[in-house]
């Protein structure tokens, strides 16, 4: 019964959801929606617990860089403590968030720009015709999307618009059609219990 009950739950709940929407009665399953959102919200600590237990193990066993795990745990504790103690959208937590999380998060995201520069120099080689087409198309779009492209020649913005309007739109539509079919098939497989990987390896 360890796998039959979850499979049955998935099937019943999924069929009810599909039928409710297709018969125009989506309001009838508001209770089920509320249960979904509430249950997922109360499972929010799952990631944090995994993270805390991993880093506590690192500290306990004095694995390499264990000192930084203490930094992570203290940060997690401090931010969570201040955030929960302060009222919603309160000034103390907002100060911590805007001083540390926003700038540091933005900076980590910006590191990719340097790697792209390095990769452009070392790895983006036109080894064959297809790669050359890819690189030329990319460079036209880069110039077309920056104001300097229009200054050099109106060709770049016209060509960029054409590339995005015609080849990109038709190719992405074709790819999205395939992705759509694949997604729908996967959803049906999950509902019917054919796909069971979410239940763990012992469920097969």
């Amino acid at each position, binding site marked *: 019964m360890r796998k039959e009950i979850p499979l049955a739950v998935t099937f019943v709940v999924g069929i009810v959801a599909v039928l409710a929407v297709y018969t125009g009665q989506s309001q009838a399953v508001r209770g089920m929606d509320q249960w979904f959102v509430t249950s997922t919200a109360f499972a929010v600590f799952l990631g944090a617990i995994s993270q805390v237990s991993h880093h506590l193990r690192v500290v306990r066993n004095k694995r390499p860089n264990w000192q930084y795990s203490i930094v992570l745990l203290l940060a997690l504790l401090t931010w969570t403590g201040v955030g929960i103690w302060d009222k919603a959208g309160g000034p103390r937590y907002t100060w911590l968030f805007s001083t540390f999380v926003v700038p540091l998060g933005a900076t980590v995201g910006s590191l990719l720009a340097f790697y792209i520069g390095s990769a452009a120099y*070392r790895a983006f080689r*036109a080894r064959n015709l297809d790669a050359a087409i890819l690189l030329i198309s990319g460079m036209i779009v880069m110039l077309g999307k920056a104001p300097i492209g229009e200054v050099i020649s109106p060709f770049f913005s016209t060509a960029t618009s054409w590339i995005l309007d015609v080849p990109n739109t038709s190719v992405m539509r074709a790819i999205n059609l395939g992705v759509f079919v694949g997604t729908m098939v996967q959803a049906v497989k999950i509902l019917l219990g054919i796909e069971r990987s979410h239940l763990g390896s012992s469920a097969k």
Partner: protein
Amino acid sequence: MGFFDWMQKIDRRWLYLLVFMSVAIPVVKPMGLPISIGKETEGFFAAIDALNPGDVMILTPEYGAAQVPEVGSMTTSAFRQAMNKGVRVLIFGVWPDGQGPTIAQGACEAISDELGKTYGVDWVNLGYKPGLDVTLKKMVDDVWEAAVGVDIKGNALESLPMMQDVRKAADCKLVANINIHGFGLEKTMAFIGIPTGMTVIGGNGAAGITEVIPYFRSGQLQGLLMGMRGAAEYEILVQKPGRAVVGMDAQSAAHVTIIIFVILANIGYLLEKRTKAAKAAGR
């Protein structure tokens, strides 16, 4: 060692420095390059401009701290345009990292104070609500239930005058989704736009624009802001040029730098290939 041989072996930290300088120099010394407005941005502007004073629009900032430079000004410009038109704004987010509405709150408060608008009357921020797609569906059925009766500051929705006119998503006239992933706009269309028939417009980070452009071409999206260029064009239309406009010169210089890197690298590669072929033929 030939010039191109030397260039192949250059330390990558010099490349990092060149990339940094290509962005930093135009920030210090702007070039003032002209920025033309694309039809996608015009569509976004026109969609909000078509609303009447008193109408409510939904604005969903779905991005994290890392994407603020690129799409942050899309949210603030859309908010400014709405406030200038007398359109009321309902903000919320469902994206799992939960940062978008929090980041938007500070920026929107500053604009609200500047324009003499009142929180709770002219705009409300419900904050992050967990549940992704299902929360979007709940917003269509019942906004108050989806928001659990409170806004981002914990105020009861009963105490906010604007919320008396907003019980479900269809009470709003338009939904603007500012996202970095293509499927954020798709979900907004699927769960809010199509069931309610509302106008859907979107702003997307540049990395996702190739995925969402087909929706604009098919007319499913009435407007689309594409990356920092789209944000700059929109700032011009809203008549409040900001960091996106200022950044376009640096964006141009950086693009040219990357293109020069690619061209130089490929010239070196072709010469190397030719040398190897000549050596092999000579044996």
